[in-house]
């Protein structure tokens, strides 16, 4: 219950409540997007990856972020003064 699960937003199921259908490792569930939509319409998140906690998306994660952290690992190779 306290581990966040990554999920990809598939479609918006109830725009007024910011509910969406999302896929998490092949399991589809309804999730709530209200904490990750700033002001825009929820539709903008279709296709996006989010981290979901007990049915609520709490952060958007992007491939870019994944790449950024990979760059962090690359630091290890460069011997950054440690």
């Amino acid at each position, binding site marked *: 219950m306290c581990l966040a699960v990554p999920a990809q937003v598939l479609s918006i199921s109830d725009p007024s409540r910011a509910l969406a259908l999302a896929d998490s490792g092949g399991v589809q569930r309804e999730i709530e997007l209200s904490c990750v939509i700033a002001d825009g319409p929820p539709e903008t998140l279709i296709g996006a990856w989010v*981290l979901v906690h*007990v049915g609520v998306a709490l*952060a958007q994660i992007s491939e870019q*972020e994944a790449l950024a952290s990979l760059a962090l690992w690359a630091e290890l190779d460069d011997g950054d003064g440690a």
Partner: protein
Amino acid sequence: MKYVDEFRDPALVAQLVKRIDASAARLPSRQQPWQLMEVCGGHTHAIFRFGLDRLLPDCVEFVHGPGCPVCVLPETVIDQAVALAQRPGTLLCSYGDAVRVPGTGGSLLEARAGGAAVEVVYGPRDALELARRHPDKDIVFLAIGFETTAPATALALQAARREGIGNFRALCHLVLIEPPLRALLADPQLCLDGFIGPGHVSLVTGTRPFDFIPAQYRRPVVISGFEPVDLLQSVWMLLRQLEQGKACVELQYRRVATTSGNSAARAAMEEVFEPAPSTEWRGLGSLPHSGLQLAPEYRAFDAAALLEPRAATGAEPGDPRCGCAAVLSGRMKPPHCPLFGRECTPATPSGPLMVSSEGACAAWYQYRQESADDRR
């Protein structure tokens, strides 16, 4: 996920272990090992699952912290949930993790076997949906957890209020991450040298609840992800701070966590909850301002109002040999509890740390049976 492999890459792990060894060798020598507390139960689970503790040099060790919400649930909360589940016309909804936690009179699962109405739900919105579908029943959601799950409960209660769903209620035992860390750091018997901060709590809170650790106690904190490479990198970052005599909050989990967290989630929590004067923690006792209660405008949703007032028994029940308190505060390792692996196993848990897979005892039992002879 696609990029998970990178975070379990054996070559990267080997490199990090080398870095950790080198860094540890440069630390001032001393008798007791350098103790790094992983605050979150998710980290505890990953450490055991991947055997990360065995990759550390002898002079560095993990200490398992209080960040598993199921593990810190007091028996009285389970007892209240059981009482509600037994109440006619009431359905008690709970996360799956909490239904096996023993209360003084058994767990919610045992109560269900005896005829009580208990339903396992994925989250509070599912409980709210049950309330919509069964207007004739009182639907009670057992709201437990840290700042990670509190926003979901807040959003469900906001929806219930908006839609006027009067048969939905919450039995709240929501807790905050900062107070138990303050309690542990103030304990002169403990000597924790650094903290691996919970990446997912920080999604909501940002780094603010951890700022006092370097500021007041001069200990480093690294907010970490959950993969082996994340955790090892966090260890290395902590050792580097220790080595350089630095103490600050660093983010290892940068691909997800931010220093500011999620303000929309916090806004929902702030509308629905207020700090409770004091909250009971298993193993840590009663801590002031360590939990959340419903704010005045949401009191009508408080399931505690449905409970018969009961005379407080005062006495702390349970087996006196139970080592939960010592394990939860990092004073004892799970296999040194006299009940470990005997009376207390995942199938027959005596304490909450044996229930959740994020509990230190369950993780130790599941992944360390082969070295049960470590036990003294």
